[in-house]
């Protein structure tokens, strides 16, 4: 497990140092709509850019200004401080407008601070609709990305190599799905914090090493007997982008809750489904990444996203949902309000919090709200148990 926590809690860790020692390139990417398999196929390490370890905001604030999500600002801050100096390239994707602006802010900062823009710096566009021309456009974007990587890194990315990469990534997806199944049981043997660390690690570790480690861990988990969910509230965590292990710890360290599922950009929602391994691999990647529409960046799919969330709540037996959005994250801010309306109407308690990302997380305020929410869940569960008991009594009478 430590290998996952090491990878999830540090910007640069042993596997990256080793990878670089072998003379192989690393390319950062910003969004779950970027097909990481393409880089793997070129023997390039796809590294999901993160905001952890940020301890100031002078660079981020200078180029982004104050009224924007703190996640892309943290990425720029780290870049400006040389924390991503191991990168040979970066691709920026318009996951949201804040992330799109990272492209121009990073380039501009690079004019003032020498050496912070990697040699390969690429804008990878992603449509906001998957229907008709949207899918065709996305397929073209992937093909253009392939051409660009081939040209810059002097490599050849064949369909066979992409298919092999899909197959390797799918092994990890299957293992994560198995672990996800363990979280649906009455007695959950793994903490949400550990599962999330393992999921985040998958976005930054070399994939072969990741698959091997994940297999070992999944096997060990299946043998575990001690329940971590006994006398705890089962909650789901959803909302804005988060790669913060400490956010999970904040909730689980109350000693009153276990996170049995998450619907986050770094979480299982993308990794839970496999990619087709037969047919045209580029089409399969496009279908997987753009077709799922699981992020509110995609137009007109709220009902599908609500249905998916409900299904996951039922499957994981979550008793409440914590919804967080980073300040100025309009996509999740708006969608969380709709989720809250619809889930509360179904009798599922929801907590909606607006917060800052990462180093700016205001722990005192968050803790108070989370504790109050867990107390509210306790009251609702007691009421439900009491009414179930009285119904039982009246039936037997």
């Amino acid at each position, binding site marked *: 497990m430590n290998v996952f926590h090491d990878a999830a809690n540090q910007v640069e860790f042993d596997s990256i140092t080793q990878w670089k020692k072998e003379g192989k390139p690393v390319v950062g990417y910003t969004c779950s709509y970027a097909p990481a398999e393409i880089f793997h196929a070129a023997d390039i390490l796809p590294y999901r850019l993160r905001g952890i370890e940020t301890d100031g905001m002078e660079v981020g604030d200078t180029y982004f200004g104050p009224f924007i999500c703190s996640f892309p600002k943290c990425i720029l801050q780290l870049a400006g401080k040389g924390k991503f100096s191991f990168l040979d390239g970066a691709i920026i994707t318009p996951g949201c407008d804040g992330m799109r602006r990272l492209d121009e802010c990073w380039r501009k900062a690079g004019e003032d601070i020498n050496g912070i823009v990697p040699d390969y710096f690429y804008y990878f566009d992603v449509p906001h609709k998957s229907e008709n021309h949207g899918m065709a456009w996305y397929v073209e974007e992937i093909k253009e990305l392939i051409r660009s990587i081939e040209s810059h890194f002097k490599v050849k990315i064949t369909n066979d190599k992409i298919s092999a990469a899909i197959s390797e990534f799918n092994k990890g997806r299957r293992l994560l799905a198995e672990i996800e199944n363990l979280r649906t049981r009455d007695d959950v043997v793994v903490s949400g914090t550990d599962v999330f660390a393992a999921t985040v690690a998958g976005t930054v570790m070399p994939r072969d090493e990741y698959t091997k480690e994940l297999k070992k861990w999944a096997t060990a988990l299946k043998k575990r007997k001690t329940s971590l969910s006994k006398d705890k509230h089962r909650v789901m965590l959803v909302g804005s982008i988060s790669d913060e292990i400490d956010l999970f710890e904040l909730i689980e360290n109350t000693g009153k809750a276990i996170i049995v599922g998450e619907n986050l950009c770094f979480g299982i929602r993308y990794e839970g489904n496999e990619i087709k391994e037969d047919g045209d691999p580029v089409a399969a990647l496009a279908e997987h990444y753009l077709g799922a529409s699981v992020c509110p960046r995609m137009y007109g799919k709220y009902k599908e996203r609500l249905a998916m969330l409900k299904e996951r709540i039922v499957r994981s037996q979550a008793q409440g949902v914590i919804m967080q959005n980073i*300040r100025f994250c309009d996509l999740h801010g708006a969608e969380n309000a709709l989720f809250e309306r619809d889930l*509360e109407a179904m009798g599922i308690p929801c907590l909606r919090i607006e917060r800052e990302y990462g180093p700016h997380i205001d722990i005192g*305020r968050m803790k*108070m709200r989370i504790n109050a929410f867990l107390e*509210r869940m306790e009251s609702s569960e007691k009421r439900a148990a009491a009414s179930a008991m009285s119904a039982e009594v009246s039936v037997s009478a």
Partner: protein
Amino acid sequence: MNIVAGFDVGSLTSKAVIMKNGKIIGSHIIKSKPRPKDSADAALAGALADAGISREDIKYCIGTGYGREKIEFVDELVSEIKCHGKGARWMMPTAETVIDIGGQDCKTMRIDKDGNIGRFSTNDKCASGTGRFLEVMAKVLNVDIDELGKLSAKAKDPITLASTCTVWAQADVIKYINSGVPIEDIGAGINTAMAGRVAILVNALKPEGDILMTGGVAKNIGVVSTLEKLIGKRIKRARKADPQIAGAIGAALLSMEKMAS
């Protein structure tokens, strides 16, 4: 003796309540000290003196408020949202919606007949709409915070604050003072700005039934009356106890429940 206590160590003030058989026998409010532990000690000492008992007489106590984790002698910690809900229902048995404005945050909540919390919402990370906002403004105006609320009734032409950001609003207030605007009109503008922030939160919760306000700001008549206009509903006044100690009362009531269970 069935004596219990509740502590609410907040960012601005710290409160202690001692109850015996469901009745308050001692309470004390102090301005919070830099260390939560010192605040709790001082509030307890005052409440013990008020009740005429010693610390050993207290059988169970619950702590709440932002400094709760640093109170050494409490048996249990509970969130202030739960405590305010419990305390509010005790202060007014018909209350179904509670608005609590504390030193650094503002909360609105729905409660059931036992004072258990249902849906709740809280302000964002910002001092506007909190007791701290009023404290800063009272200092700038050089009036006692207890007097700030009364200024609204005397105002003839209240000012409008362009921003509810505490820092910008403070700059605005200084500008009005320097321009010779009557202090009543500035005070009324401050109370209205505060009520406006809180109203957004209250309306989002869709308040039902009797509404009770707790926390120190409940004593600010200017904020309360403007808030009533903005939400279009009457806010009831509880006479049973000082609304500022509602959280500590709730903590003491939960201590009682714990003793009984």
